[in-house]
């Protein structure tokens, strides 16, 4: 490292009292991987390839761990474990604490021997377990059946379920959150302009802005019109103005986002220059 020669004071890997510091090693690894990814900006090279493949591998592993611990375990494995254990204990009459209150009530029913309601309970219990756990698990297994080409068509069922869920939720939430809200927000009032006493420039400016906003909005909507050529007295100029509004929007959003992106870069350089090279306090 020629930078040592320049008097740079890197983060030490060894503790002052002897022994290896985990944080020190971690910072060195993180710094090398960071530089590896940045080296992509120069050109594709060994360091980038190494970091890239490692990143893909680690993040795929992370996804698996996350899915298992955050989704699969709490919503399928743990409930089924509890149910099957409780079920076993009740059947065998073991005196073990029962985890699930549903099962507890089953136990009381078994003891009380109320036959009618017991049947109803067992029935609804079975419905619930089936709907909440067994059926989605079957759908999930149908997904895995893609591994066998002859049974691959089974994977259409889970796919259809997910697509249907997405479509259903999309219809209502866009109507609710986008369409109605955005239309409501566009109802500007020009009443102050008519109630103005004398010439009040701030009101005039406000109204002019509102007018421009609504005009721009309507023209930009017209730009998206599909079933007619954008020609003629109204559609032509309107869709043209709509494109201008969209272009200004894009330019402005681009300019607006620059700040946030640079903050990210600053964060990384603070890590490199501060935590690793100890140059910035």
């Amino acid at each position, binding site marked *: 490292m020629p930078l040592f020669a320049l008097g740079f004071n890197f983060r030490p890997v060894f503790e002052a009292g002897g022994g290896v510091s985990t944080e020190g090693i971690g910072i060195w690894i993180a710094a090398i991987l960071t530089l590896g990814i940045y080296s992509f900006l120069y050109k594709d090279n060994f360091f980038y390839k190494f970091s890239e493949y490692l990143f893909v591998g680690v993040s795929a592993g992370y996804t698996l761990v996350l899915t298992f611990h955050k989704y699969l375990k709490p919503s399928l494995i743990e409930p089924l474990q509890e149910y099957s254990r409780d079920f076993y204990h009740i059947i065998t009459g073991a005196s073990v604490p029962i985890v699930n209150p549903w099962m507890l009530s089953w136990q009381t029913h078994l003891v009380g021997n109320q036959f009618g309601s017991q049947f109803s309970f067992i029935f609804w219990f079975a419905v619930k377990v089936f709907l909440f756990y067994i059926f989605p698990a079957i759908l*999930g297994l149908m997904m895995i059946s893609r591994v066998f080409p002859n049974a691959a068509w089974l994977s259409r069922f889970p796919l259809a379920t997910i*697509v249907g869920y997405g479509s259903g939720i999309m219809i209502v939430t866009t109507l609710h959150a986008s369409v109605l809200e955005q239309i409501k927000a566009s109802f500007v009032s020009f009443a102050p302009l008519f109630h103005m006493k004398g010439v009040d420039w701030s009101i005039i400016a406000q109204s002019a802005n509102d007018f*421009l906003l609504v005009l721009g909005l309507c023209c930009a909507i017209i730009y998206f019109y599909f079933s007619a050529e954008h020609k003629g007295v109204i559609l032509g100029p309107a869709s043209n103005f709509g494109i201008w509004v969209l272009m200004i*929007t894009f*330019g402005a959003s681009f300019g607006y986002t620059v700040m946030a992106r640079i903050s990210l870069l600053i964060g990384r350089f603070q890590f490199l220059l501060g935590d690793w090279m100890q140059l910035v306090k």
Partner: protein
Amino acid sequence: MALFNGFLIVFFIVLFAALIFVGQTLRTSQFLRRKLPLAFCFFMGVIIIFQFFIPPENPLYKEIEDLSTKWIQIISSFALVIGLISLVTMNFNKISRKYEDWQYAVVLLLGFFVTTFYGLRDGFEGKEFDFIFNYMYVPMQSTMFSILAFFVASAAFRAFRARSREATLLLTAAVIVMLGRVELGSVLWSYIPFIGNYFDVSDLAQWINKVFTTAGQRAILLGASLGYIAASFKILLGIERSYFGSEE
């Protein structure tokens, strides 16, 4: 504990075998292959729409929400397996057949298996998993994200050129907003003769944002919403089913 886990594993294996058997036996049924999946899609969509209109105080609201999110979670967790199988086999093939860059496939698989091993063994609190997360995953993630700053610069240099009227509007809006975002921009702006003294560039940037950006973004949002609704409608009714792939 092990007994019940064993019971569950056996249960799922039997279930899976039964599914495969059923799938192979019934694979020629047109009703099962085409109509029933579409019906599933419709059924799920209707349930979700129905749920939206139930008052939240009604226990059914919570129940359906719970049920549908659980279903989606469980299905996508299982689906992940397919992707991971593809990832692992592809990289194993790469190594065994000595394709170009096969050495890196070793790195990939090593990263994957080590992370998975420690993560599944200790959960999120494990020391080794924590190390991988903090000193490998997070730095690489934020570095990749921060590369954007460089690309913002190169894209601006290349694309913001006054080739046409639209491009000129794009670049003017971008420059004004960039000037308005930092104090230095206002200072420089005040040196521009005539205009500079009348108004501040940050006010101009704010005006562009308030009038044009709001109008443009709202128009895109409204248009896209109509697109969403129409596309969802087509999917629920089975008019659009290209995502199923083969029809045979």
